[in-house]
C-alpha cells in the first residue's frame, strides 16, 4: 500500500455485530472523521476464529474462504475493531491454506491489508488524537491476541492519551489474560472465572471508572464479571471512548 488510503472496508466481527453495534458505529465515525470512505460488505459473517480455536480446522477454513471472498471484491485495506479477529486473519488465514490451495495466495493478500483499528489509525494514518473527550479515569486492558499476535502495545495507549481530559491509569499485571478464551470460558469455567477474578481485582484497585479494551470478546467477559460484582466500573471498547466528544 502506498500513500494514505482514501477508502477502507470495515470487518465488523460477529460479536460486535450482534452484541455491540455501537462499537461498529463508533469505528465508522472515527474513520469517516479521518476523511475515509468506509465500505461495509453486507455479506460478512464470522472470520472463523471460534472454530479454529476449537480445533475445527475444516469449518474454520470454510468460514475463512467466505470472508476472503467477501472482502476480496474491493482492494481497500480492511479495518477490524478487534485484535483477536485481526490476528486470526493476519496470522492464521495464511496457515489455513496449503501452497496448492487456490485460496493460499488470497489469504496472504488479505492478511497483508488487514489491520486492527488502533493499529490502522496509528501506524497507517498517523493519527495522534481522534477528537474524543472524557472526564473519566481510564484503564487499558491489552487483549492477548492483539498484544502478542499483532504487537498491539503502545498504539491504543497513545490514542487514549490523546483523548481530551482522560486520565489513564495502569492495571496491575496488565498483560495477564482475562480468562475469556472463547470456548475455554465454558469448558473450564472455574479456571476462566479465577482468571477473571484477578483481572477484576486489578481493575478495582486501579481506581479507573472505565476499563478499555480493543476486543468486545474480552469486554463481554469483563463486563459480565463487573456486573456480577455490582461494580460501577464500565467496560467499553476503545472505539467508543475515542469517538465520544461530549463531556459527561
Amino acid at each position, binding site marked *: 500500500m502506498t500513500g494514505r488510503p482514501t477508502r477502507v472496508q470495515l470487518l465488523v466481527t460477529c460479536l460486535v455485530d450482534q452484541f455491540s453495534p455501537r462499537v461498529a458505529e463508533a469505528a465508522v465515525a472515527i474513520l469517516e472523521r479521518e476523511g475515509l470512505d468506509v465500505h461495509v460488505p453486507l455479506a460478512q459473517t464470522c472470520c472463523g476464529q471460534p472454530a479454529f480455536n476449537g480445533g475445527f480446522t475444516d469449518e474454520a477454513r470454510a468460514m475463512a474462504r467466505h470472508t476472503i471472498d467477501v472482502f476480496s471484491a474491493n482492494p481497500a485495506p480492511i479495518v477490524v475493531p478487534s485484535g483477536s479477529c485481526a490476528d486470526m486473519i493476519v496470522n*492464521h488465514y*495464511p*496457515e*489455513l*491454506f*496449503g501452497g496448492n490451495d487456490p485460496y493460499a495466495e488470497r489469504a496472504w493478500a488479505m492478511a497483508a491489508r488487514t489491520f486492527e483499528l488502533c493499529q490502522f489509525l496509528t501506524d497507517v494514518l498517523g493519527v495522534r488524537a481522534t477528537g474524543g473527550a472524557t472526564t473519566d479515569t481510564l484503564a487499558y486492558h491489552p487483549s492477548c491476541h492483539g498484544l502478542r499476535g499483532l504487537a498491539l502495545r503502545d498504539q491504543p495507549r497513545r490514542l487514549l492519551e490523546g483523548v481530551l481530559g482522560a486520565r489513564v491509569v495502569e492495571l496491575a499485571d496488565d498483560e495477564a489474560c482475562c480468562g475469556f478464551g472463547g470456548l475455554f470460558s465454558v469448558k473450564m469455567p472455574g479456571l476462566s472465572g479465577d482468571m477473571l477474578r484477578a483481572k477484576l481485582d486489578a481493575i478495582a484497585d486501579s481506581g479507573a471508572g472505565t476499563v478499555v479494551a480493543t476486543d468486545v470478546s474480552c469486554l463481554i467477559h469483563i463486563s459480565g464479571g463487573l456486573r456480577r460484582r455490582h461494580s460501577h466500573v464500565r467496560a467499553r471498547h476503545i472505539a467508543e471512548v475515542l469517538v465520544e466528544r461530549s463531556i459527561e
Partner: protein
Amino acid sequence: MSARDRVLAAAREGLGRAAWSAHGRTPGPGPSPSGDGRRRRPSGDADTRALLVEQFTAALTALGGQAHTADSPGGIIDIVTSLFDRYACCDFISWEADEIPCPGLLDALASHGRRRVAYDVPFDQVGRAAVLASLEPVGIGLTGGLAAVASSGTIALASGKGRGRLASLLPPVHIAVIRTRALVASLDDVVTAHPSLVAEGSNIVFITGPSRTADIEMTLTRGVHGPRHVHVVLLTEAAP
C-alpha cells in the same frame, strides 16, 4: 536389526514424514549460530584485564563467593594460608602442585602444619566407599583452573591426571587459584580460547558461585551438596 538401527530408522522415517508444514508452520533455520553478532572484547591489554578482574569479582561476590587478587606467588600463599586459618582447617585435598599456578603453595601449607590428604579412589566398590568416607571430614579443597569467565563469575575446571574432581566438590570450602591470563569476558570466549575444550578432560565443570538451592519456598540456601564457600584467587601477571 539392533535397537540402535530400529531407533535411527524410526527417526529417519519420522523426519521423512516431514510434518513441519502442519498449518504452514515451518521451523526455519534462523540465523546461523556464529552470526549472533556479539562483540568480542579484546582481552589482551592491561586495562581490559583490570576491567575483567573487576567484573569477575563483582559477579562472584554477587553470587556469594569471594575473589582475591595477588600479583605474586608469595601473595597467593598469604591469601590461601589466611583462608585456612579462617576456616580453622587442618586437612585438605588438592590438585597436584604442578597443576596449581603457584609454585611453593603446597609446601608452604605443609610448613604451616596443614595436611594434604592424597587419594586414589580404587576400582572396587568396598575400597571406593572406604576412601570416599575417609575424605568426607576434609575441610578444604584446593585446585587450579582452566579458565574464568568475568561476566558470570564462573570458573572452569578440567579433570585429569593430578586434577581430581573431588577437590572442588566434596569439602565445604573450595579455593581455586587461577591466572588472570585465563580470564575471559564471556562463556563463548572459553570455547574460542579452547577449541577442543572437551579434550582437556573427561570432566569439565563450570562452577558459578557456591552450591545453592531454592527448593523450599524459594528461600536461597548455600552449600546444599557442593561447597558452601568458594574462593577464587587470581594471580595477576605483568604483561609479557
